[in-house]
């Protein structure tokens, strides 16, 4: 139905920390080796690799460390965290077409102990590239951090729909509640209350500290191969039912403020409609979703863009417990990037695979299809992963 014949056959990760104490290349190598071990594949059987353009570890360097030999397919996906699901999309197309037989997708960084994305980079606006020119309309005014870029959208959203800081806080509280019972999460055992959220300091109004995801060191890797081959491997395959990338008209990196409307994420709508079209599924067919949560406001927007609720209804959906374990659509049972770790969206894909295998820390019952999204506010991507019986 989808034209794709691909599945995630293995997942691997390092520990998630604030100071890994090791190089990013070592993190990448450790995660890739763990994913191959999970799949039951040897490094010699890998012939394709995909990562983010932002990743500091070239495919060939990771291949050398792990002992991967000949590569027939390698690809990099741009636009920050928007690349996460697209790494699997590229890998799925590669194995479907036969360009490669087994592709490893990975992302590794010391985002807390090394270069922190949340810190201002004065040089962002100084480059004569198209992105530098784009940033030059914003950076000179001090609009220079991801939190502030997102806050600009959030203010308009809150204004338009009469939502409040507490509505954003409920997203953070749910993610931290999920993380509290996930031993792999940085915030394991550390839930927060709405009062904690409201008491946390302003970062960029209307965003408070607890609206912002954490900063993490760590790596995640995924092994993608054909569904048939995956069936013969060690683990239950997570079938790639649909995979899509999306960018919208008037798209910019984090600052698409010049479109008619600032309350939506048109690029996520592009991804969502393609996912529904490819899979033949509807929101009612999704048992749990992994929604990119670097900042709370865009979780609300995604619920709307993907059709889980109507425009302006997400705050009510969350207020009713809709995104919590046991709710209408448990979102990020692992705790997301607000609760588990910020690995640029890749840890969420691993969680989707665990939910399908039935091995998640906070297992949702009867999971057949999981929708996963990548970075928001940027050109992005998404997946629907399904159990093999689908």
């Amino acid at each position, binding site marked *: 139905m989808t034209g794709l014949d691909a599945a995630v056959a293995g997942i691997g990760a390092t520990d998630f920390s604030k100071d890994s104490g090791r190089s990013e290349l070592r993190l990448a190598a450790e995660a890739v080796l763990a994913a191959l071990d999970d799949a039951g594949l040897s490094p010699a059987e890998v012939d394709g690799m995909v990562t983010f353009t932002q990743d500091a570890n070239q495919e060939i360097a990771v291949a050398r460390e792990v002992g991967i030999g000949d590569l027939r397919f390698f690809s990099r996906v741009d636009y920050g965290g928007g690349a996460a699901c697209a790494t699997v999309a590229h890998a799925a197309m590669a194995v479907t077409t036969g360009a490669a037989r087994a592709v490893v997708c990975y992302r590794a960084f010391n985002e807390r102990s090394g270069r922190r994305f949340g810190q201002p980079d004065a040089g962002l606006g100084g480059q004569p590239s198209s992105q530098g020119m784009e940033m030059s309309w914003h950076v000179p*005014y*001090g609009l*220079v951090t991801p939190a502030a870029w997102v806050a600009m959208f959030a203010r308009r959203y809150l204004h338009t729909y009469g939502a409040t800081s507490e509505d954003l806080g409920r997203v953070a509280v749910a993610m931290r509640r999920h993380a509290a019972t996930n031993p792999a999460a940085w915030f394991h055992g550390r839930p927060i209350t709405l009062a904690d959220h409201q008491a946390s300091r302003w970062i960029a109004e209307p965003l408070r500290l607890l609206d912002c995801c954490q900063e993490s060191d760590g790596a995640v890797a995924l092994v993608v191969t054909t569904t048939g081959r995956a069936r013969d491997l060690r683990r239950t395959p997570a079938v790639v039912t649909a995979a899509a990338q999306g960018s919208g008209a008037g798209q910019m990196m984090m600052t698409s403020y010049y479109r008619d409307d*600032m309350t939506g994420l048109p690029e996520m709508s592009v991804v969502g409609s393609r996912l529904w079209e490819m899979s033949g599924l509807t929101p009612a067919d999704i048992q749990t979703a992994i929604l990119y949560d670097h900042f709370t406001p865009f979780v609300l927007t995604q619920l709307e863009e993907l059709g889980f609720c109507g425009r302006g209804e997400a705050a009510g959906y969350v207020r009713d417990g809709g995104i919590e374990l046991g709710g209408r659509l448990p979102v990020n049972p692992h705790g997301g990037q607000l609760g588990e770790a910020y690995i640029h969206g890749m840890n969420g894909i691993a969680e989707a695979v665990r939910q399908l295998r039935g091995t998640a820390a906070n297992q949702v019952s009867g999971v057949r299809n999981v929708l996963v999204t990548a970075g928001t506010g940027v050109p992005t991507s998404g997946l629907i992963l399904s159990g093999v019986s689908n």
Partner: protein
Amino acid sequence: MTGDGELRELAAKQAALGEVAGAPAADPVNVPMIRHWLSAMGDANPVYLDTGVAPPAMAQVWTMQAPVSGDRSPVNVMMTALDAAGYTGVVATNCEQTYHRYARVGELLTPATRFTDLAGPKRTALGVGFFATWVITWYADAGEPVAEMLFRVLKFRPPEKRAEPYPLRPAVNRDTAFFWEGVRRGELRVQSCADCGELRHPPGPMCPRCHSVNRAHVVAGGEGVVYSYVVHHHPPVPGRETPFVVAVVELPEGVRIVGNVVGCPPESVDVGMPVRVTYRPMDDELVLPVWTPRES
């Protein structure tokens, strides 16, 4: 402030005065000063004390005075005028001494000064300035010249201290230079397509509507309304004091632009607030368009 022409006129007047006598030395040429000077200079030549003469290079020593306020000597008049004209820096550039004979112990020396020349303004590494030259002659009791000295200084205008460069600089290229040029002239320029008239911000090299690459601009009226905004608190941003407000401002011309809202407390900013553009120099080069509240 005195103009350069006036400075040159004043210099000509001082030169026309010719040699103007100064106050005689307080003390005659004497052994203790000579001994002290030789010791300070490390000059072991016994000829001076043996024969009762002063080292010629001591010429200035005998008559040098602490600066006196209200001194109307030609040199001082000229220096005061240069200071007043902004040429406050000073550096000595030439000192040429001519010795006619030894000054003898017991002689009382009297200086006389001729202001000879003011040249400039000239561009120098230190800044723009004038070279001022004068000649001092020391006379013995009988009016006999003992030594003379040509002295030249550069009086320069110290370059104004440059503001610390603002760190958050925009990249500017041939697609966007018109905007920043406009800002420097106090104009908020919005790109317009020279063929179909479509307005567009941020600007770009090709009209997305008709694909024309012929670009023009209109000057916006300068009024707008806050469409959305953030109050940045954390983390610290280079070149900025927190908290500060950044807004998306909607213009009646039909485009949006991002800029700071200034001139009011952050808590008074709201969506829908009417604002007007103003221009804020960030350093010696960069000017940013920013927004202040206006009556609706």
